[in-house]
């Protein structure tokens, strides 16, 4: 860990101004950033602590949704009665993530900004375009069991590790950001995380000096909500594949569906054509397979993660079967 300066921000605008300085980074729960600093994967020269800013409220919006402050803890968000009642899949996604201790520290904004768990990203002795642009990608041609099968590039095949973000993607959440001038910008979560392309080090569309202040949820969508996380052990393991689903069905016919996937790509993955293809169709194996085929359009394995393709198909199939069971 390199020496750094530490500033406790007393306002959002002050935090955003401090953040505009080169080498500055926001710290809230620190559950990911501190690990990365110890390994010198991250070496900020200044930490701007926002954990004491009044961003820890969950409020109802006039539109009938929720506005979740950026520093709301994962545990608190998961336990909120409004979230549990109306956005069950978000609560379940949060509780499927990390461990109780980490959830008690980790924040909503920080969860969106957590970095990939790619082994090579964490190992500074290995090439990694995300950590050191232009150095290469050790995961390509290496061990890539936990890596992406969709939306990857020849520069980076990392995945985004969040469960929470997958649920938010299915819920069409919005990310609210503020800059030093106090200007607020709403970023649809679909546009918040980026694909790696040729710049895997740039992971979000957040601009320099912008700070996340809240995540907004639209009114709860109709239908059954499911979060299914497939992993190597029953707790404290990242998703190999996860599915966040909101499905409305009646009398064996699907009326609407939203499907977001974790563990597959550099961002929570969602395919509108797959969802549209389900509408009006009978809930049966053929329908589910067609949806899986649409989701997996363009999917490719890199060796040790080839299994994710059939696993995604099977998991989606199982989720849709449960969601449409009447």
């Amino acid at each position, binding site marked *: *860990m*390199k*020496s750094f300066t530490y500033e406790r921000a007393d306002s959002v605008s002050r935090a955003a101004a401090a953040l505009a300085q080169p080498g500055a980074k926001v710290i809230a729960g620190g559950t990911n950033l501190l690990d990365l600093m*110890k*390994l*010198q994967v991250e070496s900020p020269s200044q930490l701007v602590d926002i954990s004491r800013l009044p961003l820890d409220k969950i409020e109802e919006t006039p539109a009938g949704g929720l506005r979740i402050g950026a520093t709301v803890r994962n545990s608190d968000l998961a336990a909120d009665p409004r979230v549990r009642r109306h956005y069950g899949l978000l609560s379940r996604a949060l509780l499927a993530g990390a*461990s109780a201790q980490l959830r008690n520290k980790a924040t909503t904004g920080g969860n969106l900004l957590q970095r990939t*768990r790619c*082994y*090579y990203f*964490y*190992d500074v*002795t*290995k090439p990694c375009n995300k950590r050191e642009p232009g150095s290469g990608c*050790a995961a390509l*041609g*290496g*061990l890539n*069991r*936990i890596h992406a099968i969709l939306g990857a590039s020849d520069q980076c095949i990392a995945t985004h590790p969040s469960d929470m973000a997958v649920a938010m993607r299915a819920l069409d959440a919005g990310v609210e950001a503020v800059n030093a001038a106090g200007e607020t910008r709403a970023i649809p979560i679909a546009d918040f995380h980026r694909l790696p392309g040729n710049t895997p080090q740039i992971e979000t569309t957040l601009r320099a000096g912008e700070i996340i202040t809240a995540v907004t949820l639209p009114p709860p969508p109709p239908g059954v909500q499911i979060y299914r996380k*497939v*992993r*190597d*052990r*029953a*707790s*404290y*393991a*990242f998703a*190999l*594949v996860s599915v966040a689903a909101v499905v409305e069905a009646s009398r064996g016919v699907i009326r609407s569906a939203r499907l977001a996937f974790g563990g597959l790509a550099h961002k929570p993955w969602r395919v509108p054509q797959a969802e549209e293809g389900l509408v009006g169709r009978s809930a049966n*194996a053929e329908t*589910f397979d067609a949806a899986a085929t649409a989701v997996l359009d363009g999917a490719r394995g890199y060796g040790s993660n080839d*299994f994710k393709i*059939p*696993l995604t198909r*099977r*998991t989606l*199939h*199982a989720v849709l*079967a449960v969601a449409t069971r009447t």
Partner: protein
Amino acid sequence: MEMNTPIGSNALDDNAQGVVGKPLDRVDGRLKVTGGARYAYEFQQGPTTTYGYVVEASIGKGRIKSIDTLAAERAPGVVLVLTHRNAPAQGTGNHREAHPVLTSPDVSYYGEPIAFVVAETFEQARAAAYLVRVDYDRLPGKYALRDNLDQARTPRVDADAVQPDTAVGDFAAAFAAAPVQLDVTYTTPLQSHLMMEPHATLAMWDGDKLTLHTANQMLNQGQAVVARTLKVPPENVRLVSPFIGGGFGAKLWVNADAILAAIAARQLKRPVKTALTRQQVFHVTTHRSDTIQRIRLGTDPDGRILAIGHDVFSGNLPSEQTFEGAAIQTRTLYAGANRLTRHRLAPLDIPVASSMRAPGEAVGMLALECAMDELAEKLDLDPIELRARNEPTVDPEKHIPYSSRHLIACLQEGARRFGWDRRNPKPSQVRDGRWLVGMGMAAATRGNPLLLSKANVRLGPDGFATVRMAMTDIGTGTYTILSQIAAEMLGLPPDRIRMELGDTSFPLAAGSGGSWGAASSGSALFDACNNLRGKLARIAGMDPSRVRFADGRIEAAGQSKALTDLVGTGIEADGEIVPGKTLKDFSQQSYGAHFAEVGVDVDTGEVRLRRMLGVFTAGRILNEKTARSQAIGGMIFGLGAAFEEGMTLDSRFGSFVNHDLAEYLVPVHADVPDVDAIFLPELDTKSNPLKSKGIGELGICGAGASLANAIYNACGARIRDYPITLDKVLSSLPLQT
């Protein structure tokens, strides 16, 4: 005493105080949960203490062309940067004999320490460590076991060590002629011990005397290794380790932390403290080799084994001879006239492979006990019946009797308690919601060693007995069971025993490892207490062979005297246990049976344990509670080995890619539902005066195999490549409809 003949009735059998065997809470439990138990890194040595941080080689094989330490030396707080350029000459040997560091610019494996940065604070040392710049000449390395089998050779070992090869009868001919044959190959992965406390040392010199507060399982052995490495007399080296946060074999030997800290402390004339980071533990210290195991079983049509063969490949550094003895249990577990076991070792340029919990059996049983399950199915026999038909009357290789063996009783009692008769032998028949449910079983066995140990016990006028031994407690409960033995022998309540362990200034002890700890240290203490009983009896004017010690009193022939009236200013006795003839005259193992029920998610192939039972016999159980904890801990270790654990080697770099606790998976609470272990009554008069046998590693042996067999029963997937993760199961699952 020397263990040459079977033990007759003794004071532990009398159980006059009623302490031995009882489920006494850990006597050090309160210290541990209140933070009062101090571990190596927690010892304080005042403001002169400095802190060291290891710099690891970032290549697998080659030579340091240049190493630039200038920036590190100029960094804030840095007082010393050790490299091969300024490290002293050191003694050499294999990893059990010496641990020289920074001896040359050659890099033998990824993660090998190449520098040691010492600063006023840990953070300064760590920051400066990243400033060390190294240029390498890289050489091609041999990294993956499976790619280097053609290089494998027979390991060279001492005549009295476990031999790599054994043969009885004519295996090849008998197997070829056997009416029923099974020939299968199992593989197990590289594993890391991952005990809770990383390796840590505080080193300080007083003139030419070195004291090391260090996390080490075998202090006397460590003392010798440190002395040899640093080229100082052993009596000038003191190791102190009263509390150790787990070891599982990773702390059997002296590691780089101890030697680097000692060298730096000598140069600086200041105390040096260091701890490996969790990530460093994976490469800087030892691990368990992966194995490739071929098992061949030939039987008659009734399932009686005619030929049994077990061939094992493992890997290690070219300079090492330690092999993973995965065929050891195959030499003694089942009957059969024609037998062959062979171990071959491939020289590899990866970190040192060495002992990890139940070295040999832990992974050998993963193969043998699944092969037995496959054989049972082939024969259309219940797997318990197959084992019963192959129960030997004497050790089938050594042709000597067993000291005690109740495997069949464990199998039968376990089957009864677990409800084995409800198992459908046909796979994929039982559903519970989304889960395919299956049952599996496996035998358990682990060798029962005994090592030289000594003890001193002193009874003071205050009625307290003080026990001193260089024994360690690595979390297993040694403090507690030794307290119970001393209390029982001296007729005192356990809270009247003061235990002083973990210091080489105390009498020599075997340390903790190989399931020998309780038997070896406990027997030495038994002998010391027995000698003290004799002294007290004589002072009391009683016949030592007829006295009874209980409740602080000595009694014989209607007479009773308080011990405190006999001891004057205090009276003490030494004792020792010397392994003897009974180790050669009797085949000594602990035994047990594992029963497991697992669920396999019919859609995703996720495997989860539902319930598990272990039934064991291990001679006298010294403490029901700590014994059960040991057994359950082993079984959960087996769960990890079966479903989760494994280091993944990147053979391009020679490094382990999943080197932290987020990506190297071990069981978490949510993975462990209903697990129970029971011990059947047994006394082994040939093992040691306690009549106990080792339990530290018994629980892991066979545990994973019972889970693998349960997976097969659940879904029909016979996975011979551990760990059994969902990607391996997926293709065996039914299509979704």
